[in-house]
C-alpha cells in the first residue's frame, strides 16, 4: 500500500465543560490514502466534526484541546507544528468546507475577495492575479457568469451557491486533502446531490483526498471509498464502503443500516430505529459505550472496552460480540 497522505494515531481531544472534561474524540486512529475519499459517519455528538477540526487544529481553545496523539500529514506531525507552520497548511495543503454555507462566508466581504484570499495569502500572488484565478475557480464550481459574480456579496447567493463558493475557496490553493464537514446537511435535498457530485468531481480531477463527514449513510454509499463509523468519540468500525454495506460487523453499524429507508430490495421491511439515546460523553459506561443500546450485548461488554481489531481484509471493528 502507498504511504497514507494523512495518518491519525490515537487522537484524543478533550473539552472542559461544567461537568468535568469530556473526551469528544477518544483515541481515534485512521488513515487517508492519496486520492481516497474517506467518509466519517456517526450521529450528532459522535465526535466526527471534532475529529475534522482537530486535524487542522481549529478546536476553540479554551474549552477544547488536543490532548494526545499525532496527526501525520505527509510525514509531518501537525500537532507539533508552531503557529506559522500550521497556518501554512490550513487552506493551502488541507482545506476545509463547513456545514453552514449561510454563516460560513463573511457577509461584509465580496465573494471574489474571499475566494482569492487564500491564493494571495499562501502564494503571495498579487490581488489582481488572485482575482483572475478566483474567476476561474468560480467558473469551475459551475457558477454562471463568474467574472461579474466576483463583486457580489454572500447574501446575494442561495445556500447551494454559497456552498459552491466554499468549494471554490477550498480549491484555491489546490490542496492535497479537503475536509468537508457535513457539506450538504443545511441544503435542500435537490441541491445536496449536485454539491456532492461537484465535490467528487473536483477531487477526482485534482487527485486530492477527501474526508467526507456525514450522518447520511446514503451519501456514504455513493461517494466514499472507505468508511469509518464513529460512536461516542471512538471509531467502532472501519471498512471499504462496499464491504461495510455487504457485511456490516458492528451492531451499531447494523442498527444504522436498519434505520435507513431503502427503495430497493427489502420491500415491506420495517424501519428499525436504534433504541435509546446517544451516549452522554460526560458519563460513559465502563465497558463498551454502545453497550446500553446494543442488542447483541455479552457480559464482557459491560466491563471491558473493545479495541479496534481486524476482522477481514481492510475491515476492522471494535466489538466483542459476533454479529
Amino acid at each position, binding site marked *: 500500500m502507498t504511504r497514507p497522505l494523512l495518518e491519525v494515531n490515537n487522537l484524543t481531544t478533550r473539552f472542559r465543560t461544567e461537568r468535568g472534561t469530556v473526551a469528544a474524540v477518544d483515541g481515534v486512529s485512521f488513515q487517508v490514502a492519496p486520492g481516497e475519499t474517506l467518509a466519517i459517519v456517526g450521529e450528532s455528538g459522535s465526535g466526527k466534526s471534532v475529529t475534522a477540526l482537530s486535524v487542522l487544529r481549529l478546536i476553540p481553545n479554551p474549552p477544547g484541546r488536543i490532548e494526545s496523539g499525532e496527526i501525520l500529514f505527509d510525514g509531518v506531525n501537525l500537532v507539533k507544528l508552531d503557529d506559522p507552520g500550521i497556518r501554512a497548511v490550513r487552506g493551502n495543503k488541507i482545506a476545509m468546507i463547513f456545514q453552514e454555507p449561510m454563516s460560513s462566508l463573511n*457577509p*461584509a*466581504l465580496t465573494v471574489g475577495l474571499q475566494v482569492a484570499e487564500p491564493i494571495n495569502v499562501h502564494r503571495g500572488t498579487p490581488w489582481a492575479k488572485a482575482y483572475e484565478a478566483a474567476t476561474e475557480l468560480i467558473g469551475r464550481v459551475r457558477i454562471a457568469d463568474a467574472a461579474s459574480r466576483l463583486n457580489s456579496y454572500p447574501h446575494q447567493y442561495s445556500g447551494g451557491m454559497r456552498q459552491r463558493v466554499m468549494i471554490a475557496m477550498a480549491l484555491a490553493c489546490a490542496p492535497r486533502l479537503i475536509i468537508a464537514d457535513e457539506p450538504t446537511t443545511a441544503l435542500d435535498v435537490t441541491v445536496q446531490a449536485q454539491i456532492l457530485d461537484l465535490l467528487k468531481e473536483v477531487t477526482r480531477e485534482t487527485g486530492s483526498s477527501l474526508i467526507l463527514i456525514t450522518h447520511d449513510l446514503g451519501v456514504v454509499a455513493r461517494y466514499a471509498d472507505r468508511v469509518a463509523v464513529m460512536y461516542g468519540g471512538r471509531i467502532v468500525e472501519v471498512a471499504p464502503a462496499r464491504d461495510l454495506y455487504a457485511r456490516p460487523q458492528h451492531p451499531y453499524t447494523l442498527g444504522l443500516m436498519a434505520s435507513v429507508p431503502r427503495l430497493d430490495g427489502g420491500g415491506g421491511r420495517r424501519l428499525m430505529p436504534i433504541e435509546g439515546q446517544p451516549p452522554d460523553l460526560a458519563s460513559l459506561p465502563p465497558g463498551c459505550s454502545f453497550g446500553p443500546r446494543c442488542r447483541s450485548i455479552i457480559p464482557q461488554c459491560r466491563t471491558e472496552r473493545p479495541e479496534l481489531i481486524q476482522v477481514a481484509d481492510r475491515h476492522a471493528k471494535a466489538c466483542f460480540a459476533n454479529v
Partner: protein
Amino acid sequence: MQAYLARRLLALIPALFFASLIVFVIVRLVPGNIIDMMLAQNDVGADKLSRDQLVGALGLDRPMWQQYFHWIGGILLHGDFGRSLWQNTPVRELLGARLPVTFQLGFMALIVALIIAIPIGIYSAIRQDTAGDYLTRSFSILMLAVPSFWMGTMVMVFPSIWWGWSPQVKFVAFTEDPLQNLKQMILPAVILGTALSAITMRLTRTMMLEVLRQDYIRTAWAKGLSENLVVVRHALRNALIPVVTLIGLQAPILIGGAVIVEQIFVIPGMGLLLLDAISQRDYPIITGVSLVIGFCVMLINLAVDLSYGLLDPKVRYR
C-alpha cells in the same frame, strides 16, 4: 441613494422647525428677566418709563409668536440669527467665530476616543480574560466613572502645584498658529476623548467577542490567515457596525462635554458662548447656538446612517 438622501434631508425640515420652536419657548421660560439684569447692572433707578423703553428697544414688547416669526424669518430669509441683546453684535458673527473652535475640539476628542477605544477594545477581545484585558476593562470603568469636569479641574490644578505649569489662557486660533493651537487643544481633547472612549471600548470589545465566535471567522482561520488578517479584515468590519451607531449617539454628549471642558480651559467655543449667554439671558444667542447644535446632531446622525452602507453590504438605501 440620491433619493434616500433627498428624503432624509427633507425630513430635517420639520425636525428643525420643532427644535426651533422648543428652543425659542424654553429659553423664555427660564426664570430671571433680562431687563432686571440690565437695569441692575447699570444701576439705573428704573422707573416705569425707562423700563418700557428698554423692553421696546429690545423688541420684547411684542407677543411671543410675533417674536418667533421675526426670528425664524430672519434666519430663513437672510441667514440672520438676530443680535446679542447685550453687545448688539450679530449672533451669526459670534457663531462664525465660535463654531469652528467647538468643532475642532469635538473632532479632536472623537479622534482621541477612537484611537483609544478601537485598538484597546480589539485587544481586550482577542486576549479575553488575560491580565491585559482586565487592566483595560478596569481603566474603561474608571474613565466612565470619572466626570470630565473633575478630570479637567485636576489637570488644571495639580500640574500647576507640582511643576508650576498651567494651560495657556490666551486662545490661539488654528488659522493663526496651527502648532500652538494644537498644543493648546490637545489636553482638553484628551480629557473629553477619554471620557467618551470608555463606552466605545466596551462595545467594541463585546462586538468583537460576538463576531469572533461566528462561523465565518472559523472559515477565515481554516484558510490559514494570520491573526492580524482574521481580526482586521474579517472581524473588525462586522464588529464596527454597532460601534458607529454608538458614536452617532454620543455626538450630543460630546457637545455637552465640550461646553464644560471649554469652560474649564477657557476655550472660546460655543460652549463658553452658550454658558455666558444663559447666565445673562441673552435669548438670541441661546436660541441661535442651540439651533445650530441641534442641526449638527441631526447631520451627524444622518452621516451615521449613511455609513452603514459602507460597512454592511446588505444595507440598501431606498
